[in-house]
């Protein structure tokens, strides 16, 4: 330029070039770091004689597992041990999620109650259990509660059906006869029918404006139809009640102390968080919405059903899902009390026996990652559906 003034940006201030260099740097550093780790791992594994193969999966595991939902014995393979761990993790997570949701809903609603005693009690519950570590609660329920229970002979007897002692909680076990499948079939048919009914009712209401009591008719269908079938085919369900025989209980089913302690702690701890989510979700619906709905002449429960709950659920469901994920991930604390979950069986015993550290930790993390990411994916789809549509 003739007058010496330049309007051209010098190259080191060019946004695109800068971005390009920054990214190249990030790639180089990340790749270099990973290569460094991979190289060291290679060298170290060779030095210790570890190979990175999956062969160990077909070898005999040789250790027993105190609870398994699928057939397993010490002569089974490591692959089967892995499956036992995985099913145990999924099992305790599923039971925990159901119980924590119920308890959390109850406490969350109780916290909003106009009854001073009830709301204060719920508040105390939330503050106590949310502010102490989960692991401490697990230890408490295992060492201070389950192990302090009376011995088998002095079991606590709950109505002659349930027995609690330091070997676990003994419950009656349902024994379905072949004809029971008819009842299960009836239940599925009833659910399908009530779903169809809901769709039909919505269409009719959209076309003619006439409402239909979907909830009550659906509930009646789901309860009455299986019951009717149950009595028609001759009550094909019996209960095996535990009874004391010699030094132990026979019959029924047992929740081992490790399972019971872990389940109690997971449920109580997560329910405290869920209660807070439910409370804040309901409070997030502004009072004007309730007033507007009431002034339209809707009865109280229809206000709840049609106005408050749909809006509250939009706020509640995403954090609720992440609590469910937390519960699933926290179930890995099982290893602290010896409940045979995935981490305890696979990343614990199997790792110690085979020494395949990289593969085993990788697979364990991969399992949890898969569960988390697939739930997040579903959550994102759901969020897209219920999102407020603005402009």
């Amino acid at each position, binding site marked *: 330029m003739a007058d010496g003034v330049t309007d051209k940006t010098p190259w080191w201030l060019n946004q695109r070039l800068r971005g390009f260099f920054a990214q190249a740097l990030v790639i180089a550093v990340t790749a270099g770091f990973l290569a460094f780790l991979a190289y*060291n791992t290679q*060298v170290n594994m060779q030095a210790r004689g570890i190979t990175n193969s999956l062969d160990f999966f077909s070898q005999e595991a040789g250790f027993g597992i105190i609870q398994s939902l699928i057939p397993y014995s010490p002569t089974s393979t490591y692959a089967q041990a892995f499956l036992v761990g995985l099913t145990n993790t999924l099992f305790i997570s599923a039971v925990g999620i159901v119980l924590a949701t119920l308890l959390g809903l109850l406490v969350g609603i109780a916290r909003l109650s106009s*009854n001073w005693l009830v709301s204060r009690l719920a508040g105390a519950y939330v503050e106590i259990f949310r502010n102490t570590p989960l692991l401490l609660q697990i230890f408490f329920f295992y060492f201070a509660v389950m192990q302090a229970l009376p011995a088998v002979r002095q079991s606590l007897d709950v109505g002659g059906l349930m027995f609690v002692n330091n070997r676990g909680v003994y419950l009656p076990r349902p024994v379905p006869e072949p004809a029971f499948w008819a009842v299960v079939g009836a239940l599925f048919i009833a659910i399908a029918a009530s779903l169809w009914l809901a769709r039909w009712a919505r269409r009719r209401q959209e076309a003619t404006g006439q409402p239909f009591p979907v909830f009550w008719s659906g509930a009646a269908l789901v309860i009455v139809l299986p019951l009717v079938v149950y009595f028609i085919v001759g009550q094909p369900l019996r209960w095996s009640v535990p009874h004391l025989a010699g030094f132990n209980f026979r019959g029924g089913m047992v929740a081992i102390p490790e399972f019971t302690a872990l389940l109690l702690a997971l449920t109580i701890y997560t329910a405290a968080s869920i209660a807070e989510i439910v409370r804040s979700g309901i409070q997030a619906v502004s009072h004007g919405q309730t007033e507007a709905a009431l002034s339209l002449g809707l009865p109280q429960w229809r206000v709840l059903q049609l106005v408050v709950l749909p809006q509250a659920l939009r706020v509640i469901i995403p954090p609720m899902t992440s609590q469910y994920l937390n519960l699933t991930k926290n179930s890995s*604390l099982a290893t602290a009390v010896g409940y045979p979950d995935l981490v305890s069986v696979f990343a614990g015993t199997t790792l110690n026996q085979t020494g395949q550290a990289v593969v085993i930790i990788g697979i364990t993390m991969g399992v949890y990652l898969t569960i988390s990411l697939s739930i*997040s994916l579903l959550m994102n789809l759901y969020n897209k559906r219920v999102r407020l549509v603005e402009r």
Partner: protein
Amino acid sequence: MAYVLKERHPDLPPPRSEVGVLGWLRRNLFSTWYNTLFTLVTAYLLWLALPPFFEWAVLHAHYAGEGRQACAGGGACWVFIGDRLPQFFYGFYPAAERWRVDLGFALFVPLIAYLHLPRVRFKLWVGAFTLFVYPVIAYYLFAGGVFGLPAVPTSQWGGLMLTLILAFTGIVGALPLGVLLALGRRSSLPVLRSVSVAFIELWRGVPLITVLFMSSVLLPLFLPTGVEIDKLLRALIAIALFQAAYIAEVVRGGLQAIPKGQFEAAQALGLTYPQSMALVIMPQALKIAIPGIIVTFIELFKDTSLVVIIGLMDLLGITQAALNDPKWLGFAAEGYLFAGLIYWIFCFGLSRYGLYLERRFHTGHRR
């Protein structure tokens, strides 16, 4: 005949059933038949639970004495806690050196107090000192080996002291890393974004315990032969990386709440990217993110207890060790209640502190 009121009739007092204790009871406990039912059932359950607990923990408890003989009969054995009290606080730190721990934490208090004074000078410097210089001083004070202080290996650190060290270092490490990751995730550069997303989702998708396992089993494999990292440091790195991913998501939430106009206004003023972030965006985003950050810190504080599983003796680890002492078997309830109370005080305190910060930084319109 007309009756005309010449003066104002004096106000009558409200009905007795509507005010005072009676009115309060009616409004809050017995307003409807089902509320009455709830009140009675709850009161009955509390009556079943609280008096026996009070009897066990206070009335029939044993407070003084020597050894477990002092705890014959029912009631809580607080003698056990008293016997182990130094361990609950210092772990296996040598008794003669415990003044160093006290001094280290005593140094921390005036620093934090100074940072909370409104409008004092050199706040930035004091803050930087607390974040960068204080940890170094504290480390040498605790570990020793310099200035004639006898060395205390980290394997002897324990109890509440270790829990606080884990929590403080975890917070100091996780917050800046989390902010960087959040910025990376919001960046317009695709590589930066995908690296951040991968890092965040990886840590958030797995349980902390597998990360701790990784740090204790895999890290020795990842490093060149001969390089050894202290067990405590490995746990610290694992906790800081893990929580950084959670902080990143909270901060991202705060960033997303800032209207685009703020970014554009900062650019229009000619601020560079770091300037606009540091002066315009971050102060607003962090203010919004405070409740979430505090919740994450509380989670971090509770999660420090997981180091028990890789064999560190934090508050919970020391409790476990004390309960396994053959001389003191059978006092699990007392041990866990005491440890739980300490955890509770810190976590509850943190959550109250969060509420205070929220109020203090609430510069918008109050409702």
